[in-house]
């Protein structure tokens, strides 16, 4: 309301041209659109906040972001998970400046107001000075709606949003495969890595929604070096990507790249773990997971994951699966903060955990052999999109024109699947969701 963003809904609608399967580059570069995104997307839908395993005990907290708002994810003294706006109701000071801690509550550094771990105002600087003129309950910390699915904690400021379960809808079947394939579920391996690519926040989610062909070009060398010990893996993955399913299901879009038939099943998974998976997932889920060599997906707007097997030396380094989840935090139209966690099954032994950690940090993080090259590509997109002339050229998802009317007929999971990770349909669907929120259709 305060800022005249200068964008009419009809104009926003045209930014993503559904017929042509193209989009304007302005969605990555226009500052007013960025401000609108904060209002129309980040204030209106469910956002991923953290994993329950990050705050196992009462009083455990971690600080996070929802769009450009700082929040605290805390397990209160009653054991309930809460998401509190991290700003004092007195004069707006951050009540917590740590990344993580355990506390009975939060004491504001400015005048010492005390809030409980449930966000309730416990004491002002001097309660008597109010002379009873103020209802202190109005000065509790603001709280977001909180929902949790498969250990994943989401929150939203929008009290009109559907419940989390309904919001996730068909996506849950796929979240189950990744986050609920053992009885006790996943656990994080540490606090998140954070780094700051110099590109619009949407490039990451789009890539993870998921971009098959870039893997051959950008990651071909590291795929060759880590997936098959330096020989032929790039050609194998090229074919696998061409022939594997891409899925749109509710707010979720992603790929499930399948290794070739001659490749062993459950690569990198110890038999005792596999037994747990087969017991926990249903057969269709197992069928999708057991030969999966890359599961990459995005839940709109800014939550993604990436999973797959690697070995840095087929002789010396047993194949291990990395599994990273990440949030793409919007910082500015051309600046994003990536928050990146590594996960492993709660049931995994210490040795498997350590191997999973190493597989993760060597691949998908700021210094990871995969991510370091993606970030350069994304930066180059931002630089390539900012010019006046460049703004007149649309970005293309036109492979979708060839696939979107030909979904996989006998797909056993919910949602819609397309027969190639090169299809560009699921990536584009992610933008179609963006368009719906930005025009107010959702």
């Amino acid at each position, binding site marked *: 309301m305060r800022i005249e963003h200068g964008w009419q809904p009809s104009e926003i609608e045209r930014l993503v041209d559904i017929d042509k399967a193209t989009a304007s580059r302005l969605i990555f570069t226009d500052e007013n659109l960025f401000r609108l995104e904060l209002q129309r997307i980040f204030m209106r839908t469910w956002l991923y906040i953290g994993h329950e*395993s*990050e705050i196992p005990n009462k009083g*455990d907290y*971690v600080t996070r972001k929802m769009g450009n708002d700082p929040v605290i994810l805390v397990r209160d003294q009653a054991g309930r998970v809460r998401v509190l706006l991290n700003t004092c109701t007195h004069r707006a000071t951050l009540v*917590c*400046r*740590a*990344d*993580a*801690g*355990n*506390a009975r509550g939060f004491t504001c550094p400015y005048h010492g107001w005390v809030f409980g771990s449930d966000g309730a105002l416990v004491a002002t600087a001097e309660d008597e000075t109010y002379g009873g003129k103020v209802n202190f309950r109005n000065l509790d910390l603001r709280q977001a709606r909180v929902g949790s699915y498969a250990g994943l904690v989401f929150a939203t400021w929008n009290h009109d949003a559907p419940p989390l379960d309904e919001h996730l809808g068909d996506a849950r079947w796929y979240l189950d495969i990744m986050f609920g394939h053992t009885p006790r579920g996943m*656990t*994080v*391996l*540490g*606090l998140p*890595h*954070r*780094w*700051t*690519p*110099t*590109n619009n926040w949407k490039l990451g989610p789009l890539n993870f929604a998921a971009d098959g062909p870039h893997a051959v070009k*950008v990651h071909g*060398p*590291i795929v060759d*070096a*880590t997936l098959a010990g330096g020989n032929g893996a790039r050609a194998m993955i090229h074919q696998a990507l061409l022939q594997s399913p891409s899925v749109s299901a509710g707010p979720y879009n992603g790929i499930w790249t399948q290794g070739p038939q001659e490749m062993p099943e459950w690569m990198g998974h110890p038999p005792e773990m596999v037994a747990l998976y087969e017991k926990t997932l249903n057969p269709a889920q197992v069928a999708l997971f057991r030969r999966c060599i890359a599961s990459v997906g995005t839940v709109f707007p800014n939550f993604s994951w990436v999973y797959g097997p690697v070995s*840095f*030396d087929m002789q*010396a*380094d047993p194949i291990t699966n990395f599994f990273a989840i990440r949030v793409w935090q919007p910082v500015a139209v051309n600046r994003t*903060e990536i928050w990146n966690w*590594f996960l492993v099954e709660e049931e995994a032994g*210490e040795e498997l*955990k*350590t191997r999973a*950690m*190493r597989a*993760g*940090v*060597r691949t998908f*993080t*700021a*210094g990871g*052999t995969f*991510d*370091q*090259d993606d*970030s*350069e*590509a*994304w*930066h*180059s997109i931002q*630089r390539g999109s900012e010019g006046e002339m460049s703004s007149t050229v649309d970005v293309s998802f036109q492979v979708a024109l060839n696939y979107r009317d030909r979904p996989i007929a006998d797909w056993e999971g919910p949602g819609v699947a397309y027969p190639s990770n090169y299809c560009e349909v699921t990536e584009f669907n992610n933008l179609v969701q963006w368009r719906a929120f930005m025009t107010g259709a959702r």
Partner: protein
Amino acid sequence: MTTEAARRVIDDALYRRVCEFYYDEADLLSQRQMGQWFALLAEDIHYRVGFPEFYEHGTQRKVGIGNPYFDDDHTSLKVRVHLLGNPTTTTAESPPSIYNYFVTNIRARWAEQPGGEIEVDSRLLVYRVRASEPVPYILGARRKDRLRAVDDGFRIARRDAAIDQAIIQAPNLSFLL
């Protein structure tokens, strides 16, 4: 100085050789002579780069087993070095970035355990300019190493580094510390 502390002091000549080793290493890393750098590593190297977090005082909570930015051995460093050292196998470093490695505050002493290893502590400032981004990225770091003397110099047997940013102010870390 205690006897133990005295025993661990290394003499001036060796100290100067250690310093030269670090300056030479800085050359290799900053000029991306990755293969030559790799030759400085012991085969049992453990290479680790951690990061700081801001914890509430008194509650340095342990979440999970911990995940540094780098946790590499000889095998995985070989892959990294291969990719970074070759312009056709890296997107981030092709064209190669400009790097300058400023090594300061070098302290060296014999390791507590006998066996001729040297503990070296140093501060490192990395100055980096990428082809696609003219504004330099300046990263502070500290390194605790274990060097092993060999005929033609030293081998790095262990590196425990930590970067000085909790939120890395760059799109990637396509270099080694």
